[in-house]
């Protein structure tokens, strides 16, 4: 078991380095979409919540799972959509509209 934890910690540390490497390249003008977008992917917790909501272990357990699924889904759906809404506004050339 402790071995498994060590592997997990290794994965975590290496992934942090990947994160630093990738995210330092995001320019300042995209920092808000970066936040909402990375926020959306942190909704990956939903995969844990899905199993709990469906494993029918006890009613209380299921309720916790369903609420967790709902919260994580808001995070995911809201996050990706609002990020897309923002990103489609960023344009290099001006439109003829105004």
């Amino acid at each position, binding site marked *: 078991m402790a071995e498994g934890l060590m592997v997990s910690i290794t994965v975590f540390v290496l992934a942090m380095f990947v994160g630093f490497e990738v995210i330092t390249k995001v320019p300042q003008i995209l920092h808000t979409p970066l936040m909402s977008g990375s926020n959306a992917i942190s909704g990956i917790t939903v995969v844990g919540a899905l199993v709990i909501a469906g494993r029918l272990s006890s009613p209380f357990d299921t309720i916790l799972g369903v609420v*967790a699924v709902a919260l994580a889904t808001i995070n995911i759906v809201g996050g990706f959509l609002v990020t897309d809404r923002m990103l489609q506004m960023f344009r290099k050339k001006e439109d003829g509209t105004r």
Partner: protein
Amino acid sequence: MTATAGGIIPLFIDFSYLLAATFFIFGLKLLSSPATARRGNILGAVGMLIAVVATLFDQQILGFGGILIGILIGSAIGVLLAVKVKMTAMPQLVGILNGFGGGASLLVAAAEYVRDPNPAADVAVTIMLSVLIGAVTFSGSMVAAGKLQEVITGRAVTYPLQKTGNALVFAVILLLGIYLIAAPQNPQLFTVFTVLSLLLGVLLVIPIGGADMPVVISLMNSYSGLAGAATGFVLHNNGLIITGALVGASGIILTQIMCKAMNRSLTNVMFGAFGSQVTAGAGRSATGLTVQEVTAEDAAILLGYARSVIVVPGYGMAVAQAQHNVRELTSLLEARGVEVKYAIHPVAGRMPGHMNVLLAEANVPYDKLYEMERINGEFERTDVALVIGANDVVNPAARNDPSSPIYGMPILDVDLAKNVIVLKRSMNPGFAGIENELFYRPNTRMLFGDARETLTKLVAELKKV
């Protein structure tokens, strides 16, 4: 989920998580340019879809009713929030979404505890950690969002013995956590642990003023990632750990950038209670200097006959929702042959990149938005710097008054421009409660009023020029 269960399906599910994480990394990579960013976001969403669909094949899942309800409710609220939110309210929305991510991590860890209230020590460690980080993220983000929405006062809330009290709460949480790891089978104590963790989130954010919210939002962003990673530890899920670490790293980087842009340490932001008091100015500084007011007509003439104008937006533009009016004014100027650029300070607004999103909404092309380092050398050669609702980020005291609380903070050097026009609601000092000597400079003209109304007047006057 658990690869240890054996068989081809768990292997397939684990593989799909790795695939999802790969999509996330590529998606974030594409965020390095506005031209590819939208594709990056879509790539991230596809990765998420892969992970969710694969999870539904998990053989532990016996019923889909609850799952369906959760997904339907979550999607409906998510769509509603994303479609309805105004661009000016983006910091609140990101705050709330951060909080929900933390809340989900908290609930998943709590459910694992409910299923097996007597876990081995290493599992217990990860559960307690996940509950603590998830709870602090949830309640802290909700308070931050409340402050941004001004449901709760945006000022720093302080009271006697605050730090001692917070330290005490934290110490109790630590002790309870350690006790619960050693002897987990104690649902009452677990509940106390959870409630105290939620309380800690509130206590940590309450003393932080509105102007420091960019740091708090970034920090909570980081926590929401770390909470996800902690959940990954609980569930032995590498996909979750990788993704959580990515988001955690992102939040940490943004937090660092924000702190650097305010020349303050994270400790100072978190515990310094900046902006707890308001010092009211009354049209003159302590030294008795007075400001020079200008009419919209004169300001329009100054702008209309300038060769170069740099617009410096701040939180005041967001509050007045004046980004479209700014755009209208600058379009007119550009039509007259005036060269217009925008100077964006990293902490202008209430979250990283706030001003850029607002100006993008108003159709300003992003190659006209300049970061501080790139534009500061140009103010000297600029005819008019137009400051719209920005204050502390243009205060020259940061450069030349060692006694000022913001001394050393990198600022936009607008005072070096030949003329400065400041659009401001009143003479009240900015959020940090610091007098701004820019307003008393001989080359500065003040144009008082609501930013949107003032800009409308300027546009009307400019059309006559």
